[in-house]
């Protein structure tokens, strides 16, 4: 029983780490630049395709991972300069329309380049198999690696935001953008840097996801919806909020899928229980979001705006 509970808990945390990697970029872009970027999921997909392709070429997971990062960065830079930069002054609806069009464009482009068949990518032999944690639970090594990677990124982000000049500018910009502009900071350059950085986190998550999931067109969209829930729960513009929101969503979603069906099975007969519980467990995170919004509308760790 301990194996089951701990395994599910670890599953939830691992899912949360994935969500954090993608949400951190999303929340920065939304919080700092006030741009809703629906194409963030596409950047996740580009990361996965880049590593799948490069892995096919180089046959080394590590090399493919390192080479994919600049690929995602270049893509993000082009997208930012050509499209996103024109959206800063527009209202949210225009941003939604433009970035949604970007999703369709990127999806079609990927289909034209790689076809409709999902690409093959396997877990690197060094990271495959199971490890035993304190002798209590045995868990796939690769998923542990993802948790570690997510924590490392969280740590790096914390260092940058709390201890560097760039981080200071980011915090200032999310709080009061106009003042930062008036102080003579090159806000356009900052925008590009932040967009590319956010995109790289999403791409990195995509690279990590490649071995575990099907590398297919549209793989980012499902995750993106969950990420919006994460940043709404955590508070928009706040990295701490993204981390907390992501872990909460990851654990609640996993626990919901894991235990709600059994719980309902005690009261209802099997077929009815399975049907209702399937619906309930996929609803659980949205119910959570509603509860958080009712209790704390700006999220759990909101960035306090000073204007």
């Amino acid at each position, binding site marked *: *029983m301990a*194996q*089951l509970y701990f*395994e*599910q808990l670890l*599953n939830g945390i*691992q*899912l949360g780490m994935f969500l954090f990697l993608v949400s951190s970029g999303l929340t920065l872009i939304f919080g700092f630049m006030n741009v809703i970027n629906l194409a963030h999921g596409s950047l996740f997909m580009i990361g996965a395709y880049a590593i799948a392709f490069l892995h096919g070429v180089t046959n080394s997971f590590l090399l493919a991972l390192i080479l994919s990062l600049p690929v995602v960065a270049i893509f993000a830079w082009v997208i930012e300069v050509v499209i996103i930069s024109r959206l800063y002054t527009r209202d949210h609806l225009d941003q939604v329309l433009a970035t949604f069009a970007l999703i369709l464009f990127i*999806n079609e482009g990927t*289909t034209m380049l790689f*076809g*409709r*068949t*999902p*690409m*093959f990518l*396997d*877990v690197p032999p060094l990271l*495959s*198999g*199971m490890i035993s944690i304190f002798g209590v639970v*045995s868990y*796939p090594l*690769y*998923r542990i690696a993802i948790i570690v990677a997510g924590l490392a990124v969280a740590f790096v982000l914390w260092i940058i935001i709390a201890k560097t000049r760039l981080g200071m500018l980011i915090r200032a910009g999310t709080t009061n953008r106009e003042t930062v502009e008036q102080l003579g900071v090159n806000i356009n350059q900052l925008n590009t840097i932040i967009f590319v950085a956010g995109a790289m986190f999403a791409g990195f998550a995509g690279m990590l996801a490649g*071995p*575990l*999931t*099907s*590398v*297919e*067109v*549209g*793989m980012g969209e*499902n*995750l993106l919806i969950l990420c919006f829930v994460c940043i709404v729960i955590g508070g928009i513009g706040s990295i701490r909020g993204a981390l907390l929101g992501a872990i909460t969503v990851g654990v609640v979603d*996993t*626990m919901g*899928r*894991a235990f709600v*069906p059994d719980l309902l099975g005690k009261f209802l007969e*099997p*077929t009815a229980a*399975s*049907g209702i*519980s*399937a*619906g309930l467990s*996929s609803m659980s995170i949205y119910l959570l979001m509603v509860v958080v919004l009712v209790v704390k509308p700006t999220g759990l760790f909101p960035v306090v705006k000073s204007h």
Partner: protein
Amino acid sequence: MKLNIFRLIVGLTLSAIGAGAVLAEDLKIGLITTLSGGGGYLGADVRDGFLLAIKEEGGKLGGKAVEVLVEDDGRKPETGRAIAERFLERDGVEIMTGIIFSNISPVVAPLTLRAGRFYVTPNSAPSQFAGKKCHENYFAVAWQNDTLHESAGLNATSQGYKNAYILAPNYQAGKDSLAGFKRYFDGEIVGEVYTKLGQTDYAAEIAKIRAAKPEMVFHFLPGGMGINFAKQYDQAGMNDEVPLVLAAPSADIKILKAVGASMVGISNSSHWNHDLDNAANKAFIAGFEAAYDRSPTVYASQGYDTAKLIASALSATGGKVTEDMDGFRAAMKAADFDSVRGPFKFNNNHHPIQNWYSRVVVERDGQFVNKITGTIVENHGDAYASQCSM
């Protein structure tokens, strides 16, 4: 007055020519299928198999020139409905085909049948249209949804498994699949789980399977979902602990290719395989590989059979569909064509009666393919035929 009569004569002549042109027009076939997302290659293969048959006849089916309108439903019922309405009302489509997923067919099929047109499905065949809601203009060419999984249930029973843990996505075909498996599996069901359609992460479900310790696992997770589950199941070390017994949609060659070596040795069942030894199948595979430079999946074989069936009916009615509905319907029921599966005939509810084969995944020349190991059942009809009043 003179001018008016002149105009009248010109107008009538032109419309007579126009009417003549309409009569001599190509037969329009609407192919609504899923071409995007994780299920995209299923639709692409059905389409390519269907178009191959037309290409082989030089743009005709059964001697009648056809025009196939292909559109992507994106696995969304609303999109399927919009396309079907446009095909029926604006484009004059006489035969509707192509639907892959069973969340779309319950929307498009009734629409087509109410418009008095034929609906011929190369894939999705949910239970309601095989039983109480069967319709004289509805034909299922591939199988009835449940039978795909009934074959897996029979396969599992014959391999001696006493209990099973089963999963499928929470939609019509998912429910049909588990119902079908349970109908023919003699053992005990240890766990029955419905996942979300399009779900990518199965860690939670795999952990539950590990805790439940069943003898085997059966799942219906077509396309990208199957790839995700297979990869994660292997990563969790479960392939060595609990074997999988699958049905064709969870083990098509694209899934095998995307997942890789961990699928070798997995037992599954299907109504068709590359190594079926008949002339039609050999010709189909050779033609498909020459035309598209890739190996056909089972979905391509279904698209091809659908086109060949329609061709046989068109050849019998001299190219008429809507002008000779009774004749076309009778010719379709007769199913006088060489299926790539070998023996093929329709049941009273217009669903196939066919053989089911057990297969195992092997590696051959660096590729992962299925090899037939035996026949599970012959001339198997579906469970809903008796509920159909036809």
